[in-house]
């Protein structure tokens, strides 16, 4: 197959060629970068929180009146929650992973250290805490009931025993052997001892740069008269427990409001809503873009076929096979697409640079562009197939007609 005649034919309709090429170039640049953003978001959304998300839910309780005794209500509530059929574990908490709100602080290796060694989320739990979260203890031991401290928001001090995540342990003690070591959460207070290490428990903040650094603390700290509880149901019984929990708790103590009864699955959905929306919107842009570009190629190819009907007939009359005609249009499309793709490759990296510069996004991995090449070549060939087949069916007799 001679490329030369195709090329010289193309040169006669430069503008159309440039338009299709430009369209392919922009499509490649946008699709590559959009796909990369989508894949990043999906990776983010697939990060494990470390806790049992399928069987757990949480709820808030707010008591009325200035004389509300948060401590005794918490004791009674936990007793009630644990006695409900289908409940595997319950604890009072201040936050859960992915909920975007909670308590964070710095951890230091020395007292009165000027800047802390690492940042960590603080999860205040009682002796059933690890079990209620469903996090996996990999070293050391769980909290003992007598270790749980009651303190008000205005008191100071961090309990003497803490359990931290593997990631935080590695950060604080890169050499290993974190178990049993002492660390400082309160610069001016006494140290805390690491009594256990859990495999993983994300912080509540999905965009925190210390997302894997969490500390469990055996303490109950009500926020005024507001207390939150985390409940883990036996497998498959979560919804059944959730249905009765509000009524049971109000019956046990009517001078309060039970609110925000939500599954941790819902917390995950809410936490990642922005990432999911971004992925869906970019996905829609990609589909629409590929569709428009394909239709553009179909339209332009149809026009060329119509314009050259007579020329095709002449070629057929001179001995070209149907296959030759088909191949002519396929090759023509391949040439235009390739030129567009070469420009698009440069544009894709330029767009990536702009995104890196303006939005601190990571660099587009190199393989997106070659993969994009293959996809758009295929798209071009598919789009041109219809018009090209139509062209190949032009009868040689057309050449003999004058108009």
């Amino acid at each position: 197959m001679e490329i030369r005649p195709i090329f010289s034919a193309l040169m006669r309709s430069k503008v159309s060629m440039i338009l299709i090429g430009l369209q392919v170039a922009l499509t490649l640049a946008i699709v590559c970068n959009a796909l990369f953003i989508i894949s990043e978001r999906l990776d983010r959304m697939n990060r494990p929180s470390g806790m049992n998300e399928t069987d757990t839910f949480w709820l808030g309780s707010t008591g009325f009146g200035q004389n509300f005794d948060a401590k005794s209500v918490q004791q009674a509530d936990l007793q009630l929650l644990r006695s409900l059929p289908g409940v595997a574990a319950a604890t009072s908490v201040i936050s859960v992973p992915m909920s975007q709100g909670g308590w964070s602080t710095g951890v230091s290796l020395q007292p009165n250290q000027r800047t802390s060694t690492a940042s960590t989320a603080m999860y205040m739990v009682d002796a059933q805490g690890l079990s209620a979260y469903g996090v996996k203890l990999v070293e050391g031991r769980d909290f003992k009931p007598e270790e749980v401290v009651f303190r008000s928001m205005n008191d100071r001090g961090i309990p003497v025993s803490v359990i931290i995540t593997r990631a935080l342990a590695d950060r604080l003690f890169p050499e290993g052997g974190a178990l049993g070591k002492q660390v400082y959460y309160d610069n001016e207070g006494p140290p805390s001892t690491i009594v256990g290490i859990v495999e993983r428990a994300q912080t509540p903040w999905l965009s925190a740069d210390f997302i894997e650094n969490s500390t469990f603390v055996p303490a109950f700290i009500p926020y005024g008269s507001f207390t939150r509880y985390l409940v883990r149901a036996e497998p498959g019984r979560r919804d059944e427990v959730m249905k009765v929990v509000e009524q049971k708790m109000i019956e046990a103590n009517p001078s309060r409001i039970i609110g925000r009864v939500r599954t941790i699955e819902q917390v995950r959905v809410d936490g990642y809503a922005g990432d999911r929306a971004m992925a869906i919107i970019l996905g829609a842009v990609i589909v629409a873009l590929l569709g428009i570009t394909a239709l553009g190629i179909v339209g332009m190819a149809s026009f060329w076929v119509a314009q050259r009907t007579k020329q095709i007939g002449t070629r057929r009359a001179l001995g070209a096979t149907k296959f030759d005609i088909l191949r002519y249009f396929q090759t023509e499309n391949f040439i235009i697409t390739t030129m567009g793709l070469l420009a698009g490759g440069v544009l894709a990296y330029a767009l990536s640079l702009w995104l890196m510069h303006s939005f601190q996004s990571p660099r587009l991995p190199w393989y997106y562009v070659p993969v994009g090449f293959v996809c758009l070549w295929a798209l071009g060939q598919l789009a041109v197939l219809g018009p090209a087949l139509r062209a190949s069916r032009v009868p040689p007799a057309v050449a003999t007609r004058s108009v």
Partner: protein
Amino acid sequence: MFTYYLQLGLRSLKRNPILTALMVAGIALGIAASMTTLTVMHLMGSDPIPWKSDKLHYVQLDNWSPDEAANDDGSPPDQVTYRDALALMEAAKADKQAAMFKVSLPVQPENPEVKPFQSLLRATYSDFFGMFEPPFKYGGPWDRRQDAEHARVVVLGRDANEKLFGGQDSVGKSVRMNGVDYTVTGVLDDWKLRSKYYDLTTGAFSDPEEMFLPFTTAVDLKQRATGNNSCWKAPGAGWEAYLDSDCVWVQMWVQLDSPARLAEYKAFLDSYVNEQKKLGRFPRPLNNRLPDVKEWMRDQRVVSGDVQVQTGLGFAFLVVCLVNTIGLLLAKFTRKAGEVGLRRALGASRREVFKQFLIESGVIGVSGGVLGLLLTALGLVAVRALYAQYKSVASLDWMMVATTIVLAIVSAVLAGLYPTWRACRVQPAAQLKL
């Protein structure tokens, strides 16, 4: 002539319905993608109080640790301490000033049919209402004297009044919250804000609080803020020590009616901080800031990076759609070379031919615009479904409708210019030969 060309254009478009549909759909999709994203970005970043956004200033003081800045970019904390807020309120050097924070209280309605509910309130000063101008339906704000007396008073939002009093004028009535009775001084009308610009520390797109109570009262009742609380140094034990600490949890706004007043206030803040430095506070270099509403919204990235990227891609998509339309129009007009030749031979000037084809592209533009507008409305429904918190910024206003139509026509005419110009250059003689 215009109507005649319009008829010609419509007839020509009808002759190739598929090609026409492709062009209209292309423009419509491009318009919808760009306008949906632009609407969200425009409304997110739009000035919430244009008549005085340059007079309202957010107060930032750098009381942070000597060892590290509050933020990586060196900017001061996004809130102030209670003690500094109180000092600035008492100094009263601005034309209006309001410190504020968010609290959550259980409401115990008198009406036994209304279940107790948890309510979000803004604890602030009476100047808040004069500064941010929420519309009152009944009554009005409490006064400065009541601020000073820690009065148990409350201003209800429209929804809270609906819930508690069935929308009746409830001024003078009492609302019980966490065992304390508050007297209603005023009820707001519907207060719709595109962004909750007066407190951007816990999300820019939540609704205004359901009620408002005096700052002094909330502190008197030891109500902790439910917003963010950041400390670079652990506070001492007890409520008093917390109030006295360097923890930041209060938002502070001042109204300064002229640039001269702004300069004066800036000088006052600097001298205040220098005084405090003598007491051993404010260990960092002087770094006070007074951004106005728009600057503060920019600092706090009210328009998120995601939304900017989406808008950029939306417009890139529009460019692709336009390039597509140019190609298709070019194809179409080239095919009509014979017709052009005939008209030219019969005496039509290039100008007339140009007009005729431009009107044809205009028709495509208007149709694409109308369809695009419908698709934009659908797109905004989708945005509201995807981002629950964007409901106030994902809706079309008249300006955006007009922009959409204009954008569509301008796009289509621009796309039609080159093909039209090409069509006009047809040599009549070449086309008339058999």
